């Protein structure tokens, strides 16, 4: 009996171990090395300077004016994109929640931008939509008698926000749409019988039901949007100046353009801390769901 129970525990563990071991390596090694690099002098252009740096790299990163800009841009990009996608996604999800002709097709069209790779997304907007001469938006502006805007030059961060919102609006919409489908129809009908108007239904029935999916959407978007990179890399290169440099792009710039691994790693530690603050909340919500 005891040998059987031992072997019945052995096989599940054996099956589990490849995933656990590889993920453990994937998490621990980069984390440890990043923290280590952030504490030493490590500049590829100055190989003779080495040794323990203490907080020097962090100090250098924090006092860099670009760092403050990057943190600010990261947060603005995050907050605006989340606001646009959640509010827009919610409105669209409510709009198409009831049946209408061609609903399946509308669903497919709506979700499509989410499957477009970030580099294509960026080029599409840069050349086709936002080009100040032949771009679609310029034509619309001219049509209404306005002077076309040079989007990427004059409003770089806002342009990036537009591109990313175009990609993530479908995501928010799809999740909220799916969640709406699981609502209790009888309760809704009962509320209608009792004379609840649309606002009351929204406030007291839809919103409480959607509270959790909305928070999940927000946190997943935060995780992905903290590391927005390809759109900036492809369109503005963080510029003009630092106007569209976010934390991810700044770290990339420090590391692969200035070759200062130490300082870049200090920046990376900030990025990790930022991501984990959000992660704690997400894990709580999903953990509660597991226990059900």
């Amino acid at each position, binding site marked *: 009996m005891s040998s059987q129970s031992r072997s019945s525990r052995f096989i599940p563990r054996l099956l589990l171990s490849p995933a656990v071991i590889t993920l453990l390596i994937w998490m621990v090694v980069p984390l440890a090395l990043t923290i280590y690099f952030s504490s030493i002098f490590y500049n590829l252009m100055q190989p003779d300077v080495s040794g323990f740096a203490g907080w020097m790299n962090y100090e250098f990163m924090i006092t860099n004016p670009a760092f403050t800009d990057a943190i600010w841009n990261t947060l603005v990009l995050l907050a605006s994109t989340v606001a646009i996608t959640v509010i827009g996604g919610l409105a669209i999800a409510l709009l198409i929640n009831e049946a209408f002709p061609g609903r399946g097709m509308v669903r497919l069209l709506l979700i499509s931008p989410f499957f477009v790779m970030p580099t294509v997304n960026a080029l599409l907007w840069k050349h086709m939509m936002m080009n100040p001469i032949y771009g679609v938006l310029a034509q619309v502006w001219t049509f209404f008698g306005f002077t076309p805007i040079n989007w990427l030059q004059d409003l770089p961060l806002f342009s990036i926000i537009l591109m990313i919102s175009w990609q993530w609006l479908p995501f928010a919409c799809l999740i909220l749409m799916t969640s709406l489908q699981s609502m209790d129809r009888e309760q809704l009908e009962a509320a209608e019988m009792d004379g609840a108007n649309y606002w009351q239904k929204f406030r007291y029935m839809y919103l409480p039901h959607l509270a959790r999916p909305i928070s999940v959407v927000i946190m997943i978007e935060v995780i992905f949007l903290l590391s927005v990179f390809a759109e900036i890399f492809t369109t503005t290169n963080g510029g003009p100046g630092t106007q569209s440099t976010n934390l991810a792009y700044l770290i990339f710039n420090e590391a692969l353009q200035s070759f200062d691994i130490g300082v870049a790693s200090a920046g990376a530690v900030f990025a990790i801390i930022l991501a984990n603050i959000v992660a704690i909340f997400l894990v709580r919500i999903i953990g509660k769901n*597991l226990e059900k």
Partner: protein
Amino acid sequence: MSTKKSKWTTSLIVRTIAAWGIALLLFFPLIFMGFTAFKTELQAIAVPSLWAFEPTLENFHVVNERSDYVQFAWNSVVTSVVSTVLGLLIAAPAAYSMAFSPTKGTNGLLLWMLSTKFMPAVGALLPIYIIFQQLGLLDTKTALVIIFTMMNLPIMVWMLYTYFKDIPHEILEAARMDGASVWQEFRHVLLPLGIGGLASTGLLCLVLAWNEAFWALNLGAADAGTLATMMVSYSSPEGLFWAKLSAASLMAIAPIVVIGWFSQKQLVQGLTFGAVK
């Protein structure tokens, strides 16, 4: 009665028009790109934009010849398919183990796996870059396969776990009673019942790997570049070649958008780690 019906119809008409309007507006950039891919370069930058023109396939030929489309597409196919298969091979046994032999630690383990997704890519970039440089793996498909596999592994374990949990335990127990080995149990019971879950998990991870740009741009420059990397080479001189860029874009996204359409339902469960059903 009749007033109520007509009111209902009005709201239906309004909703239908609004929904189609929004959907077409959001889809518009892709339609426009599709049109532009078949224009000549001069037609592509015509103001106002042309909607009636004689379609040409020239752009596709030029993209093929000039930018090694086949090479980049092959890299995309290899890295996304191999990483997906490899990921399934690692994730499926783990998900099976957690779904059918849960212990006190299973929930904690699942949450820990989820938490590995919170390491921002940029936080891992430098160590990974240096390690791969030391191993001579920079700009190789192997490097991208490793990264894509690890990136998607937590999602795969979670999705498969939720699918396997829905398979009734009694079936497996019956097979065990009949003396089936672990392999037979897997081959003849689990695989046929779980194939749908495996397929949709695979599709979603294929999409995510195909579209991955951060690692592809930083680790795979020339030889191992995926389609996401190829597109960047088109970002140069002010979009002079917008028609060709459209053709290249179309070839880069068309296959995966279609796969995405088929996996959109699974996407919700996969990307929210089962928190939204």
